[in-house]
């Protein structure tokens, strides 16, 4: 049987990425991260689109060079169809469609959130099916039950802000630059996680909410700063440790409940926040206590990347799940 060789393109937010995969093995995963947004405290959609069109071809070309694969060897081209910033998605989708029609090969449209879950299938050891995946990023927080590569459903998700958004917005309140999540993680290592107590949500089922926590942090800081203007400066490590501890406690509580309700003990994490050292430690300690088999992707597969689009596209290719050239990108969608 001939090799299945795919090019995958990811452009849903502020990373332009391309990956080449051969028979399920990632050969390259090039990521260009847009840093311009740091000075604005969040992603500026129009700037993101402009940078995608500037960098998409150099990134794709580098992915081919690193893989040793030529364009003519491709079996199909995959792209992130949804969800994401529509202007950014359209650049990747239009480029992928142009290449696919010029090569006369099929297109594969991939859901970004499904791809985050399947990033756990890129490297060994891989989880057994069914497994649970906690996907945590700046835009999404979901607990997903995955029964097979293309058979998954959402058990619970955030009804308002995402966990990553809570990290970044809390960091902004503390005066830390964007993206603040990694800086909270860094300062938390030197602080006391039980120094301050913040509100925890009471949300039904396996859903999450982080907007109340955000408000709780805001009011607490306003109150303390009124008494002492240098409160944050003096207590930054304890504040970071307490905020991180609370967010992770909220995340783990529902993940434990999901495992208990489903009886599934193969547990994965995915998404940008899975790079957080506190979350990784929490997964490890819970795994030891509850006899979970836990799986965490390599760092380059945690943040937005095309390798996760490529692995998802590989399974779609095997199932013959191709998309039409007229299929459009979409800002919102579920799987």
């Amino acid at each position: 049987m001939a090799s299945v060789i795919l090019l995958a393109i990811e452009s849903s937010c502020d990373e332009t990425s391309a990956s080449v995969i051969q028979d399920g093995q990632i050969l390259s995963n090039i990521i260009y991260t847009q840093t311009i947004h740091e000075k604005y405290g969040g992603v500026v959609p129009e700037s993101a689109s402009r940078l995608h069109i500037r960098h998409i071809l150099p990134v794709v070309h580098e992915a081919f060079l690193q893989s040793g694969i030529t364009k003519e060897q491709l079996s199909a081209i995959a792209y992130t169809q949804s969800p994401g910033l529509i202007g950014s998605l359209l650049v990747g989708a239009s480029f992928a469609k142009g290449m696919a029609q010029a090569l006369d090969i099929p297109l594969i449209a991939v859901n970004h959130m499904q791809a985050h879950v399947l990033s756990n299938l890129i490297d060994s050891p891989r989880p057994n099916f069914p497994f649970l995946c906690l996907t945590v990023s700046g835009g999404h927080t979901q607990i997903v039950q995955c029964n097979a590569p293309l058979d998954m459903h959402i058990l619970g998700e955030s009804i308002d802000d995402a966990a990553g958004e809570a990290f970044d917005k809390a960091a902004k309140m503390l005066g830390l630059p964007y993206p603040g999540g990694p800086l909270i993680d860094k300062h938390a290592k030197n602080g006391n996680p039980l120094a301050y107590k913040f509100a925890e949500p009471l949300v039904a089922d396996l859903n999450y909410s982080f907007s109340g926590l955000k408000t709780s942090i805001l009011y607490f800081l306003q109150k303390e700063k009124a008494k002492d203007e240098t409160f944050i400066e003096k207590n930054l490590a304890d504040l970071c440790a307490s905020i991180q501890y609370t967010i992770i406690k909220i995340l783990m509580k529902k993940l434990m409940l999901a495992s208990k309700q489903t009886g599934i003990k193969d547990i994965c994490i995915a998404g940008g926040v899975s790079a957080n050292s506190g979350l990784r430690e929490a997964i490890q300690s819970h795994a030891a206590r509850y006899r979970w088999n836990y799986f965490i992707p390599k760092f380059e597969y945690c943040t937005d990347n095309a390798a996760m689009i490529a692995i998802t596209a590989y399974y779609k290719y095997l199932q013959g799940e191709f998309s039409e050239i007229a299929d459009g990108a979409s800002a919102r969608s579920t799987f």
Partner: protein
Amino acid sequence: MSYILYIDTSGTDSLLFLSQDEKIIATKTSALQTNHSHLIHIHLNELLLEAGIKWNQIHAIAIQNGPGSYTGLRISLSAAKGICYVHSIPLFLFNYFEIIHYCIPNKNRPIGILLFARENEFFFSAYHPQEGIIQDPSLILISDLDSFIEEKKLELVTVDAKLNAYFPKIELIELTPAKIAAYIFTKISSKKEADLFYSEPFYLKNVYINK
């Protein structure tokens, strides 16, 4: 003889055509801006089918690269980059003003070309019959335009009927695919090929952000 593919998704109406030298052999249009990203690829396939040629027979792709809808401009340029990359086809970028100027019937007079940007903001360029371009394409406020028009004695021209509401005397001209094809063919031999890897739309407007 060479095949040239032209793509314009910069506005509400899209225009795609395939020409053999300056002669158009197939045309596709659409009047629904929200469908440009879907239709452009269908139309590209139909153009080639109608002309009975394959991608590797295309000699050049020409894009109307702005100013216009930012998303529309990126749709055509992204698609063109993908196609050109596969078959090493040269890409040529044309700004809207140069195409419009070529299509103006009587050019023996100072001309100001105006395009709508948003309320009270216009994209503007000016030409003199002897001096050539006297105002490079730029974004201009309606309040800054009057003195320039008077000083240079410009006659205003546009392709957008909306501008009648702002400038009652403005001359509305029609761009036909045949005229555009003639211009592209005339210019393509002397025009510099675009940098396929890093080329961007001719936005003519920066992103302004309030922190």
